[in-house]
Structures are given as C-alpha cells and as structure tokens.
C-alpha cells in the first residue's frame, strides 16, 4: 500500500487524537428534524460503524462530514479544524476526506484508469505517468487492474465499487466515509467489497461506515453507533453492542435484521 497508510499505521491504531469531531450538530429538511444534537468523535485509525433503520439520519450524518449536506447548527471539525465554507478551503478539505457512495458514482464517460488518475492529476498535480503508476497499484490491490481500460458500465457492481474505493485511496485521504457501500450490490458481490474494506481497516485507515452488514460491523468495527430518528441512541464496541444491547429500539432493530 501507499506511504500514507503506512504513516497512519506507524502512528498507532486508534490513537487518542480525534480526527473527526461533531459537536451538537443539528439539521433540518424543512420541518423535518433529521439530525438531533449529534455529538461524535472518531479517533485516528478508528473504524466507526453507523447502523440504524432507514430514515434514521445515518447517511445524512455521513454526508455532513465532507459537507455534501449542510448543517443548521453545531460544529464539525476535521483534524482539529472547523469545516470550511465554500471555496478553496472546502475543496482542500474534501480532497483529504475520501467518500464511497452507495451508487458507486464512477465517472461514466471515463475509463477505469482515468477515473482513478483524474483527481491526483488535477488536484494534487501529479504527472500522468506518476498518477497512472499509483493507480495501477491501487487497482491491483482491489483486484480490478485487468479492467483498467474499460468503461464503468462494462464492469459488475462489485468491481465498480472496488474501483470507487481505489479512486478515493488515490487521494491518500486522512479518513474515508462509506455511505452504504454494499446496499446497491447483488448478494454475491457484497463479500468482494467488504473484503477490501476489512483489509483497509486492518491497515489502520480511519473509517466511518454506514452499513446494514452486521458481519462487517462485528469483524472490523472498533465502535458501533446505533441511530434512530436522527439521534444516537447507543454506542459501544461490537461485543458490547451486539451481545449486550441496551436500548429497546436497538434490540427491536437487531431482532428484525437477524431474524433470517
């Protein structure tokens, strides 16, 4: 892997310094109160998994962290600095926060290789050769290097999502956000994406993952956060949360999910 993640590893997994901080965050969609007094810290190297029923605000929460969603009040800090408004500062921050979407969102008119090299070339100013060399290493790492010259529509969903992860990694992000990365995938493709994410977690990447994959939460999470109705109702280590669930709401949710 790249030097960036080695650096993170060498600084120690889950060191005490918070990388992402949310302070009394409130958000409304018109009348609808979607985020209610959210307070959350993600430490460097920590893997935070957010679960909860649909409409609980977990995706919205994830998207506020790189300002794809604006908040009404409260403060969000990345690496100690408050989230900037529009402009160059925000652009710079977004380059440091990776994001993987439910619907992959690969650039449909560009080849797989161009998808991965675009931002390193245009934002970081890497040469074409340098960017392509790194991109091929990343694509090999997620197992899609043989597809480098194809267009996104020619790949399976699982392959597209792995490319999307490689595209984010190419920017050497400090933290990566995953917004339901496997929810749009056919069941047989979920594992190949989760495997890549588990590897990333092991290497010490700081991750915020919104998911319905309880297996992934148990295996890779340092902490599980349960949200419902725009509030954080419960959080703890996977063992605490899954084996000693405290709130009725979470018990009810887990009962429904794990029933089959």
């Amino acid at each position, binding site marked *: 892997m790249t030097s960036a993640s080695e650096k993170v590893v060498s600084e120690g997994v889950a060191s005490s310094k918070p990388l992402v901080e949310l302070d009394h965050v409130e958000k409304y969609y018109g009348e609808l109160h979607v985020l209610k007094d959210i307070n959350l810290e993600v430490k460097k190297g920590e893997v935070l998994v957010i679960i909860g029923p649909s409409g609980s605000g977990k995706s919205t929460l994830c998207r506020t962290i790189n300002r794809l969603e604006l908040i009404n009040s409260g403060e969000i800090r990345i690496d100690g600095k408050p989230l900037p408004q529009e402009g160059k500062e925000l652009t710079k921050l977004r380059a440091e926060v990776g994001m993987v979407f439910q619907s992959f969102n690969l650039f449909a008119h560009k080849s797989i290789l161009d998808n991965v090299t675009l931002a390193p070339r*245009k934002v970081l100013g890497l040469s074409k050769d340098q960017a392509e060399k790194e991109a091929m290493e990343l694509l090999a790492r997620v197992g899609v290097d043989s597809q480098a010259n194809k267009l996104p529509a020619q790949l399976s969903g699982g392959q597209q999502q792995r490319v999307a992860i490689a595209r984010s990694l190419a920017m050497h992000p400090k933290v990566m956000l995953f917004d339901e990365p496997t929810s749009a995938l056919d069941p047989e493709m979920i594992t190949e994406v989760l495997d890549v994410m588990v590897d990333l977690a092991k290497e010490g990447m700081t991750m915020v993952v919104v998911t319905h994959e309880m297996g992934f939460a148990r295996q890779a999470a340092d902490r599980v956060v349960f949200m419902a109705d725009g509030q954080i109702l419960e959080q703890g280590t996977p063992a605490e949360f899954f084996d000693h669930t405290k709130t009725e709401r979470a018990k009810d949710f887990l009962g429904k999910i794990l029933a089959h």
Partner: protein
Amino acid sequence: MQEMMTLLSNYNVPAAFWVNVQLTLWSALFSLILGVILVMMRISPVGSLRGFAVAFVEFFKNMPLTIIMVFMLLGVFVQLRFQFSSTFSTNFYWLAITGLSLYTSAFVCESLRSGINTVPLGQAEAARSLGLSFFQTAGLIILPQAFRGSVAPLGNTLIALLKNSTVAAAASVATETSTLMKTMIEYNASMIIAVFLIFAIGYVILIIPIGLLTTWLSNKLAVRR
C-alpha cells in the same frame, strides 16, 4: 424543371445559400460559447449568476427573432450608433450574426441543460468529494457528459438556426436566400412554383444531412450507465 434550370442560370442561388450557411456557422460558434457560459451560470452555486442566466434565457427565448433583428438595426445601429464596420453590408452582416447568436444562445443553454439533467447528481458529488473545484467538476465531469446527452437537441437548434438565418433580411442583409427569393418572384411571377421549389429543395439538401449526422452522433456518443 426547365423553368428551374432557367432560374438557376439567371440568378446565383448557391451564393445566397452560402451567405445563410456563413451566418449559421458564425452564429453557431458564438451561441455555443455564450450558451456554455449561460448554462454554467445556471448550475453555479452563486444565486445572482443563476438569476441573471434565467432572465437572459427567458428574455431571448420568448422574444420573436424578427423583433431582435429589427432592434439590432434600428436600436443598436440607428439609435445607439454602434457599428461593426463603416461598410453598410458588412455592418448589417455582423449585426445579424449578433442578433442570431443572442437568440440562439438561449436555446443552446436550454439544450445543454436538458443534457445536464441526464447526468446523475452523484457524478458531481463524487467529483466534489475528490476535491475538484466547481470549474473542474463542470468542465471535466458534468459538461462533457451533458454535451453527449444533448447532441440531438443541439442538432435541432442548429437546424432551427439555419432556417432562422433567413430572418437576417430584417437586419438588412440583402444577399441571403429569402431576399433573393423575393427578388426572383418579383421578376418571374409566372414561375413562382419553380422559385419556391428551388429554395425548398436547397434547404432540404442542407438540413437532412444535419439531422442524419446528429442522430448518428447522438447514438455514438451516448454515455452508457
């Protein structure tokens, strides 16, 4: 047929069509540039730019072209004394191109906007979350896909522009087809059907290839999702 041959040998019809083609090409170029600027304003995060673009497009889209052309002549030239050249014919020619470009840019903007609507919001979100600026996102991700998605409406706009170029007569461009047609009818009233046919066939010959080309391009360039 005999009548058409006689007319064609007495009048330089191809030269008149060439004037319309030139008017069309210049106006297509300028309206494309202006249309791209307008559509970028329309998707920009700055409210006042969006407002200006909406007002501009709505104004020129709803204003009859003849009125714009007459205004270019009587308003811009006669009243405001603005002129491109001291040679009358050159001046009228560029005034007509200005009028056509302003008018057509509104439709180019609308065509491109329909293309932008075919680009999922996620494409822009992905670009922004990678740290690309607004201009990089628009220029590298959104507009290239929007162009591919709006080849057909842009082709229709080009066809409309070619036909609209005859309205340049209203700005006193005296060498284009509709003016020549009027002259030919005036002096050859007995051959009116043949005169009509010459110009009808001429425009069909110009327009059908544009239609075929844009249909072909539109399929070839379509973005697969």
